[in-house]
């Protein structure tokens, strides 16, 4: 019964709105709205139903206009009848209206826009359309609703030149990825600062014909000229399209996230680093990382890098990985002493050969699969800048010495997370004692801690809390 309430009727309702007054009443997806807002919406609709049943006219304000608006409208028409009717809400200065509208979610703005001409004009003020998130979902592949096609049309028609910060959230279907490309290729007269293509489930951009995707993306590159942030993880972007990006946006580009873009080569990303001197954040896969890239990023003309994220992913077991020279990392650290190096490892145990042989300036280290005791031992020796360490799993041998070494050598370490690992309680207490209060995040699954003759599981939380200077408990999963 709840499903029907949530699903079809409200969908039908929004479509209805769109059909009745496409310009004013803007159908939008209710799915992305916070729960409280959705409730308000529902209430609004119910109220409206009552009005229709009672034969009241709804031609002016659209369905579901907030009660307040109705009351105001009544006050308007019945003029002086209300006691404190001196305030004419319809005559609010535009600036104030803008302020108010900024705090309203789109749906409420749409309702408000049906109150009077002035509010309707305010609804279309460019300031309110700088930022937009297109949600593209298909009923067959997602539980979420999509941005209504009429709204998309309206934005392209009336507001595309206002758009500056745009993101696309796309589900796992190819249709949705295609729809995103369709919109992109129509954004010819806008100057975007930010563009994000975000796959919310299985990455679907990869399933598009490459040429189709590239031509849509380059429309934005060519027209925008002042892109500052670009997030295109898991897409078929390629070297030539990056060249177009660089040719048009090299002065403004600050952030580029392109993890898992298999069609880009090390040369392609090098071209970006060579020419976009303002680049401060970069995310890519390890196969694109090269000594040349690091040297380019540490050239004199280049601003300090703030964040570099590297995903090290194994495509098939036993894959060979190249290594990066210590001198290149050193150059990076000299150029940007404060930069964060975030590394995510998704490797089989036997693929770690080239890693952690020399010092590496990694700050955030995430081992997403099993990692051997030996490699963790090397981490303690080679990662002096380490701030955060997450180990999802390691073998069956306890990590006692490794952790203690990390506590000893990694003086910046302030966050650690352990999943399927084992550490003896004594070693863990020792580790915490050595790190002390600088451990601001300590996320340890309860099963990780192996009781020994010194500490049992009931003592350890107290012992650790004592050394941390705050109350601490291991993480627990339900034992039901």
């Amino acid at each position, binding site marked *: 019964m709840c499903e029907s309430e949530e699903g079809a009727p409200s969908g039908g309702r929004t479509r209805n709105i769109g059909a009745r007054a496409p310009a004013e009443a803007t159908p939008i997806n209710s799915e992305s709205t916070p729960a409280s807002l959705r409730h308000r919406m529902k209430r609004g609709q119910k109220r409206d139903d009552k009005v229709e049943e009672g034969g009241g006219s709804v031609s002016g304000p659209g369905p579901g206009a907030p009660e307040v608006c109705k009351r105001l409208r009544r006050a308007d028409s019945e003029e002086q009848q209300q006691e404190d009717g001196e305030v004419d809400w319809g005559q609010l200065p535009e600036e104030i209206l803008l302020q108010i509208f900024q705090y309203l979610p789109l749906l409420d703005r749409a309702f408000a826009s049906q109150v009077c001409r002035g509010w309707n004009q305010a609804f279309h003020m460019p300031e309110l359309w700088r930022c937009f998130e297109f949600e593209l979902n298909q009923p067959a592949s997602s539980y979420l609703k999509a941005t209504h096609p009429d709204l998309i049309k309206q934005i392209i028609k009336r507001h595309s030149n206002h758009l500056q910060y745009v993101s696309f959230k796309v589900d796992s279907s190819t249709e949705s990825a295609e729809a995103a490309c369709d919109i992109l290729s129509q954004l010819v007269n806008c100057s975007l600062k930010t563009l994000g293509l975000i796959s919310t489930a299985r990455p679907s951009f990869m399933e598009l014909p490459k040429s189709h995707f590239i031509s849509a993306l380059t429309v934005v590159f060519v027209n925008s000229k002042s892109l500052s942030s670009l997030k295109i993880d898991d897409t078929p972007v390629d070297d030539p399209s990056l060249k177009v990006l660089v040719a048009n946006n090299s002065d403004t580009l600050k952030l580029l996230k392109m993890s898992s873009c298999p069609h880009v080569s090390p040369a392609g990303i090098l071209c970006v680093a060579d020419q976009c001197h303002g680049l401060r954040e970069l995310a890519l896969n390890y196969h694109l990382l090269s000594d040349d890239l690091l040297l380019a990023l540490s050239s004199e003309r280049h601003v300090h890098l703030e964040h570099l994220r590297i995903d090290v992913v194994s495509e098939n077991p036993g894959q060979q990985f190249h290594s990066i020279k210590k001198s290149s990392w050193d150059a990076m650290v000299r150029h940007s002493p404060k930069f964060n190096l975030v590394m995510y490892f998704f490797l089989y145990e036997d693929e770690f050969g080239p890693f952690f042989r020399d010092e590496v300036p990694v700050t955030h280290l995430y081992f997403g699969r099993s990692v051997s005791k030996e490699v963790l031992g090397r981490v303690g020796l080679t990662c002096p800048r380490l701030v955060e360490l997450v180990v999802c799993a390691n073998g069956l041998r306890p990590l006692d010495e490794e952790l203690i070494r990390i506590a000893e050598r990694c003086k910046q370490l302030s966050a650690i997370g352990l999943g399927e690992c084992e550490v003896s309680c004594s070693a863990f207490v020792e580790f915490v004692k050595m790190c002390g*209060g600088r451990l601001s995040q300590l996320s340890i699954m309860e099963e990780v801690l192996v009781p020994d003759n010194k500490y049992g599981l009931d003592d350890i939380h107290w012992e650790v809390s004592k050394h941390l200077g705050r109350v601490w408990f291991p993480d627990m999963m339900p034992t039901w």
Partner: protein
Amino acid sequence: MPVNSIHWFRKGLRLHDNPALLEAIKGSDTLRCVYFLDPWFAGASNRGVNRWRFLLQCLEDLDSSLRKLNSRLFVIRGQPANIFPRLFKEWKVSRLTFECDSEPFGKERDAAIKKLASEAGVEVIGKISHTLYDLDRIVEQNGGQPPLTYKRFQTLVSGMEPPEPPLEPLTRELMGNCVTPVSENHREKYGVPLLDELGFDTETLPPTVWPGGESEALMRLERHLGPESSTAWQENFERPKMNSSPLLASPLGLSPYLRFGCLSCRLFYYKLTELYKKVKKNGSPSISLYDKLLWREFFYTAASNNPRFDRMEGNPICIRIPWDRNPEALAKWAEAKTGFPWIDAIMTQLRQEGWIHHLARHAVACFLTRGDLWISWEEGMKVFEELLLDADWSVNAGSWLCHSCSSFFQQFFHCYCPVGFGRRIDPNGDFIRRYLPVLQDFPAKFIYDPWNAPDDVQRAAKCVIGVDYPKPMVNHAEASRLNIERMRQIYQQLSRYRGLSLLATVPSNHMEVVGVNETQGAAAPPTRRRTRSGTSSHRVRREHPGSNGAKHHSARHRHTLSHRTSPYTTQSDLSDHAHEFAVPQQPGRLIWPVGGGTGKREREAEHNGCHGDDGPSSSS
């Protein structure tokens, strides 16, 4: 005026520790115990054959125990709301008793029946005995909201009186002059039906691993204190070990019996205390020893006032995650065809026997949701509801909320590996061989990832992957990489934390622990809500090493500033980490789950230019 009572069995299918049942016989002339085979209940929950078999066995057992008291069980086909008025008249009923149901739909149903009863002049008595505690009191103690973390729950509970001791079972003596009028055609009219009478195919039914019923439950409980007490000790008090957990059904297992109420949780609670004292001789057990029972209690509490506890949409404690809709992949998981032997063996055990170990639950739940398939936990919950004997509505939904990191602030960085996790628990793969005979002849080296076995090994094992057993349906490395990243983005949006960290984005457990900083004399984090109540966890000692006080104070202070990620606070301190993806925040957007977004601050973030987070939106 004679007093005629009906005791209405729903859960609580037992004669021991049944306070409502004892109320029914108090000064009463007749007692009739009824159970409704309720199409509303049964149809909606779509339980599988194992659960039906278990239920019918419970009812059989109940009937035979009642016979010993010269009474009978009346199994009534139909819906209580339709049938009660007729029964009230026919049996001249003056009193109706039942065990209180804490779950929202149960409460709704009971309220309706109460109304019917009062219209018919029938007195209604409900008693709490499915849970250890009065859940409303826990909620009340927590300021009107159910606690959102287990630790918080533990703290609350440890400050309360211990659960009431179990009551004596119903006996002939207690019955006294109270009788049950039984007609000639009782079997026909009110007998416990057989499985095949309900239309189940009993030919292909696997043998019973978990026989239902109060007698069985009590026998199992006795074993805990008998010769098997050392195993019982291990199973109840020792934390699950990763590498030696019993994956097979244990003859000591009790969870299905607790779910149907064949066993009173209070009786179990006190037997555990007894067991502890027997083994440990001195000392009384700390509250954590009752973890298993308390997790159950925790979920009942969390669900008690939330009718949408089992949904993502409209559920105020559930994070909205854009799960994939993928019926084919879901079916592969449910039907044990994922191509990951560890996952498939567990799902086979579940389907055949109706129970799996809790580590196995973690494994398959993680695989379906945030680990590999990115499918909604609601779908998994429905499958468990059908197959799992102990899947009570609250407990089942609550566990899935946990496993999928949709609520209760679980760490999301850690995905159970569908290969490595099982290998650690059972390196030899005996569990897999038992449930997936097709892989029987694979060497232990490849039994968790048979697709990596060379062709000759596959041929020698008489099982070619892709022909005799499916290839793995996902690339775990790739899937978990994507999923971790998505979870990170979702949690970052929630907490408005823009850092790099995977850890800091999850509100950590201790944020909810009450009163600790105050009792230690340090400044409490300023934005904490609900820091009242003098109850401090008994696991938290109050004294604090004085010499380090100052240092720790500053550390704590920094902590609360840079990682204020509790959903009860707004993340406003962005200076350190304002870097991620540049989209200005929309002003006035609400933060989950309660509002308090400081629009002004957010607008400032927009004005000073660039770097916001991945996913604010104007359409939301």
